[in-house]
């Protein structure tokens, strides 16, 4: 099994605030990692750093063994290989669904309009959105918007997907349709790193669950272990709080 992504003592501060404090992790190809942890623990920041939307202060991020975090490196070709889906979808409101999905393939990969449209329609069909290709984002439900956002990301045929709490802006009854898509991606062998508050889902889909606390990974283990017999005291406390609030 080869390593797809390596994090080597990654550090990141905003001003005086250390948000990532020496994060180490090796992610194998086709592996699914779920980051859990309380609000502000650094989950989003970590994903944004891997996507090079934030630059790190120290350490290294390797993609297929190549350091992608070197300062001065052209980030655009790397971002192409790493898809990211956001909590609030971030769809382009002035473009219809198909244009949202085909913009990057056309402008970045240089596909012709027809090729891009074919790819777009194919993806929308896969995600059950083929009849909404002409709709604008504000005419869609949250679940549909999030599926479009996933389709938009997949249209670049990324090698890795970063999913940042992609269901937390959704009504409970819409969560399922989005999670179905993630299951399918896992079935196809996509390498995924996801931040989530859905413990049940993390347990079901992740190969390993990593508990993040104040910018450090305190524990990383297969779901049964981490949820069943957490070793770290902080993890135990966190899970206890989750159980107490009825979210597990």
């Amino acid at each position, binding site marked *: 099994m080869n390593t797809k992504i390596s994090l080597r003592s990654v550090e990141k501060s905003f001003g005086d605030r250390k948000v990532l404090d020496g994060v180490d992790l090796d992610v194998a190809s086709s592996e699914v990692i779920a980051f859990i942890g309380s609000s502000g623990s650094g989950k989003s920041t970590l994903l944004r750093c891997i996507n090079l939307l934030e630059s790190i202060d120290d350490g290294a991020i390797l993609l297929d063994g190549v350091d992608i975090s070197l300062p001065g490196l052209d980030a655009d070709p790397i*971002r192409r290989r790493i898809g990211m889906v956001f909590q609030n979808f*971030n769809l382009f409101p002035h473009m219809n669904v198909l244009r949202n999905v085909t913009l990057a393939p056309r402008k970045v990969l240089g596909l012709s309009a027809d090729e891009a449209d074919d790819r777009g329609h194919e993806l929308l069909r896969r995600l059950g959105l083929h009849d909404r290709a002409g709709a604008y984002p504000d005419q869609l439900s949250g679940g549909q918007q999030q599926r479009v956002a996933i389709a938009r*990301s997949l249209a670049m045929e990324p090698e890795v997907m970063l999913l940042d709490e992609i269901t937390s802006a959704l009504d409970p009854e819409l969560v399922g349709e989005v999670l179905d898509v993630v299951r399918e991606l896992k079935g196809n062998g996509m390498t995924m790193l996801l931040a989530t508050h859905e413990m049940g889902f993390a347990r079901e889909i992740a190969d390993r669950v990593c508990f993040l606390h104040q910018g450090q990974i305190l524990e990383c283990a297969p779901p049964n272990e981490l949820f069943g017999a957490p070793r770290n005291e902080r993890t135990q406390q966190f899970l206890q709080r989750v159980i107490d609030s009825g979210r597990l």
Partner: protein
Amino acid sequence: MNETVPGTSDRPGTVASGTSHQPVSSREVRRRFERHQKRRSTLIALTSTLVVVGLLVALIPQTPGWYKVKRSFFDGDVFSETFPRLLEAFVKDVQIFLWCAPCILVWGMVLAVCRSVRTPALFPLRLFAAAYTDVFRGVPVILTILLIGFGVPGLGMDRPWNSPYLWGSVALVLTYSSYVAEVFRAGIESVHESQRAGARSLGLSSGQTLRFVVIPQAVRRVVPPLMNDLVSLQKDVALVSLIGPIEILRQAGIDKSKFANFTPYLGAALIFLALTIPETRFVDHLMARERRRTSGTTIR
């Protein structure tokens, strides 16, 4: 809409109760109430307008200077003789407007983009754009026209490089592009950071992000204030007359001297209004549509 306090008989529940034993749906009661209110406010507005206009018409001719004013501003013969010439001269205003407006929009956008770039290497560009907008927004347009219109041709260049049309237009473009740049910049900054993140995460470059994601959204948002600036431009074109071109204001001045009568200015004003009133109404319409789109309903 709410200048009247509804009396008891206007209250929704009581409108129909006396006249009918049939149960009336609450929706019907509301509709009747609203119709009634609407008719009432229209009536009040109409009456008050008639009263005010009537008073003006009756009182103004009583003033001691009215006769003189009427002769020198409202002379029908002068009006009909000068109006066609004014209209002809106005074509020049429209022409100047038509070639200035696209230049202003393009140059204003360039300036706005310069001010929005964040690459440190391009800092000088940003500084230039900031200084430019500060200077040209801070100087009255009339001064810019005079300085450039008299200054540059003074360099003694040959035709067509000494044309007052050219330098008058340049002055307008310089000034108005600084206004328009600020409008565009506000639009660009109003596009949420997450839109950039979404675009960059797909591998779009910062230039592509600006071009395909940020600017289209920014422009949509600033169309109404932009149109306002264009309406102002339409009027300020007349200031170019100060450096020579015979456009409508200058023509009106010539006719004023010729007839020793101010009526031509009135004609010029009417011609401007014929263009600017529909323009401003159109802008209002756009703004109202934008407001409805963003807030759902209009609050009374």
